[in-house]
């Protein structure tokens, strides 16, 4: 057989092929053999294989011998080789024996195909596929595919995980649908699956499944279909577990509703306010009640409108501190303006709601009307002060009483002792006189004390007294004294001026002040007394001024209204007059003060 023609034709073969004789010398080859291997030669006939491919001996030596001796036939669909220069290539190759006319092994035939490109392409696809798999795994999105030609249903790993089945679970359409929650869910998915099959439409739906372990899960299922020539050949899609998302949404909605209910029903006034411009976005019924406005009026107004100009900086600073995280919450007592224009003192507490990035979203403010509380506080404070004062007065009084009573009683004791020691009748009579005197003093003291106690304990009725009339009445009673000492009394009071007071006390006070002024007048000048009265901030002020010898306030100021305190050495000064006057004024709920200086007259200021 003449193979030379065939060999010639072989040269143009579209594959790399080479024939070697038993000495591994080339007898024929295709051009591609040279080009594929990037050989420098075009014609290898007669050349030794190992000369052309120096590495071949080490690698293939044994194989070649095996082929020649035993007729070994080998192939590899894809093998990676590295050239001398380090570059790599993939080869699909076969080598085997050639046979001579008599069936003896005449040589080796080798074919190879450089499939590097194909392999790279494949590897690229593999890589892409892997990436997709990874991505979907990370996104926990499963895929599924129904091949209608083969009737096979494919579930990806993630899809199986979502259904909580083992990796080697083999799904079919019926069981697949069964996983959906019986009832509405199954009905919908069946319906859509069928529709997609018939029309090729795509669908996206959120439904509930029951996993293999009995858990309820929410899934987002995407259904697509490939239609070819009016027949659906393939349906596929994705499968995503959205349980968490749904749950948090449901929880969120529930929390929102809970908050809304609390907000509306709260007995505490509540406002939702923008933290930056303080605009009210929501107001609950209670705050509307406190401020006496309709909800709509309060909404969309800035909180600034409900606070006075003077107080707004305080609110502003508190909010700023809150926003700058200097404080955890806002807390202050501030006056809020009602619809009537009046202000009500409120306790304001605010907390900031932030989003996930920590940006302020809302300021939730609670408002409590504390005017009642404040009033009680004030009342308590005032009452405590009053009680303290009473206690002081009482203590003082107690000491004075004990002192005075002791003075007299101790005198008794001593006098009686002395009586027994006196030898003459004259001396004894002397003692008796002194005892008598002491006894009188005791009686007087007790009488004074009775007066004082009476003033402090009896309930007095206040009525509207015509002041001017009252003063004239007193002046009449002491008219002799006034004439005798030529006292000039000026009464600067309107005829119809009234004061809420006790008739008796008022007379007693006027009498005392008048007699004092007369008693302590300057002997060398015309004595003048000036009485005037007026209303000031809802209270009555009576000013009683004389031009007498005055009081050294520095030395005696603290004793003026004291009990039994005298400082002029006046014979008929008991030192109790002003004490009683003060008690009477205070019993009527008023105050009395004195302004004076030595030789500069005296001024009494009474407030009722």
């Amino acid at each position: 057989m003449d193979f030379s023609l065939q060999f010639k034709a072989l040269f143009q073969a579209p594959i790399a092929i080479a024939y070697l004789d038993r000495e591994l010398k080339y007898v024929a080859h295709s051009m591609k053999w040279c080009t594929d291997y990037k050989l420098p030669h075009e014609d290898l006939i007669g050349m030794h294989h190992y000369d052309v491919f120096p590495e071949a001996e080490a690698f293939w030596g044994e194989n070649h011998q095996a082929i020649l001796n035993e007729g070994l036939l080998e192939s590899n669909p894809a093998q990676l080789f590295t050239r001398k220069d380090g570059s790599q290539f993939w080869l699909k190759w076969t080598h085997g024996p050639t046979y001579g006319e008599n069936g003896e092994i005449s040589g080796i035939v080798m074919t190879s195909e450089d499939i590097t490109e194909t392999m790279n392409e494949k590897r690229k696809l593999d890589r892409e596929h892997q990436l997709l798999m990874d991505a979907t795994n990370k996104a926990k999105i499963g895929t599924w595919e129904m091949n209608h030609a083969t009737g096979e249903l494919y579930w990806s790993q993630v899809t199986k995980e979502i259904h909580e089945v083992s990796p080697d679970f083999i799904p079919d359409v019926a069981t697949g649908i069964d996983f959906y929650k019986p009832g509405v869910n199954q009905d919908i998915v069946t319906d859509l699956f069928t529709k997609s099959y018939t029309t090729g439409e795509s669908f996206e739906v959120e439904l509930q499944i029951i996993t293999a372990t009995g858990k309820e899960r929410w899934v987002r299922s995407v259904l697509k279909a490939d239609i070819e020539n009016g027949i659906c050949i393939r349906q596929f899609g994705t499968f995503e577990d959205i349980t968490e998302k749904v749950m948090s949404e449901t929880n969120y909605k529930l929390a929102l509703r809970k908050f809304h209910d609390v907000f509306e029903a709260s007995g505490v006034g509540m406002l939702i306010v923008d933290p930056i411009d303080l605009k009210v976005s929501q107001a609950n019924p209670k705050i509307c009640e406190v401020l006496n406005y309709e909800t709509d009026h309060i909404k969309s107004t800035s909180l600034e409108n409900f606070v006075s100009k003077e107080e707004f900086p305080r609110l502003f600073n508190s909010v700023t501190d809150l926003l700058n995280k200097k404080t955890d919450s806002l807390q202050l007592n501030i006056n809020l303006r009602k619809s009537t224009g009046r202000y009500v003192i409120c306790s304001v507490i605010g907390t900031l709601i932030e989003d996930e990035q920590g940006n302020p979203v809302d300021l939730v403010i609670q408002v409590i009307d504390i005017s009642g509380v404040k009033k009680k506080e004030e009342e308590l404070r005032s009452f405590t002060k009053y009680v303290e004062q009473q206690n002081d007065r009482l203590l003082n009084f107690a000491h004075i009483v004990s002192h005075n009573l002791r003075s007299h009683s101790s005198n008794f004791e001593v006098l009686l002792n002395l009586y027994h020691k006196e030898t003459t009748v004259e001396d004894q009579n002397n003692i008796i006189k002194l005892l008598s005197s002491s006894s009188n003093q005791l009686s007087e003291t007790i009488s004074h004390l009775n007066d004082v106690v009476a003033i402090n304990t009896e309930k007095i009725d206040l009525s509207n007294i015509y002041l001017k009339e009252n003063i004239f009445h007193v002046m009449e009673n002491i008219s002799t004294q006034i004439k005798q000492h030529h006292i000039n009394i000026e009464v600067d009071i309107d005829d119809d001026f009234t004061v809420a007071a006790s008739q008796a006390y008022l007379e007693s006070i006027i009498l005392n002040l008048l007699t004092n002024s007369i008693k302590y007048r300057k002997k060398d000048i015309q004595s003048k007394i000036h009485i005037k009265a007026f209303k000031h901030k809802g209270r009555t002020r009576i000013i009683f001024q004389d031009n007498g010898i005055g009081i050294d306030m520095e030395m005696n100021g603290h004793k003026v209204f004291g009990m039994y305190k005298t400082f002029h050495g006046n014979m008929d000064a008991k030192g109790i007059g002003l004490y009683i006057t003060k008690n009477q004024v205070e019993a009527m709920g008023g105050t009395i003060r004195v302004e004076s200086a030595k030789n500069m007259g005296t001024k009494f200021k009474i407030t009722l």
Partner: protein
Amino acid sequence: MELKHTWIIDDDAIFTFTVKKILEHNKLANNIEVFTNGQAAKIQLDKNIENNIKLPDVILLDINMPILDGWQFMNYFSRLKERKEIMVYLISSSIDPRDKEKAKLYKDIRAFVVKPVTLKALTELMSNSKSPV
């Protein structure tokens, strides 16, 4: 016992009468002068100092007196410079603890005696005059 030159400063006439009697009877003091208030005593004290007249050894001082009371007198008295040692005894009907405390503030006040003053107490006062209480 040496007889002491004594001043009694008290506005209660009966009290001063009785004390004077007791002191004289029991020979506890001689040359007893009585002043009805702090002002009168102060004036006399100033006068005596100016004219180099002998000052008292003992002063029995009451608290509650008109014009110048016991405390005001003590304020004046404490400020007197260069004088002989005078024992001052505060004698009062007051049992107010505040008065007792206030008495401690004046180093010249040797004791605080509460009325009625017994003979025993007076004897002790007059004999102890040299030693502080």
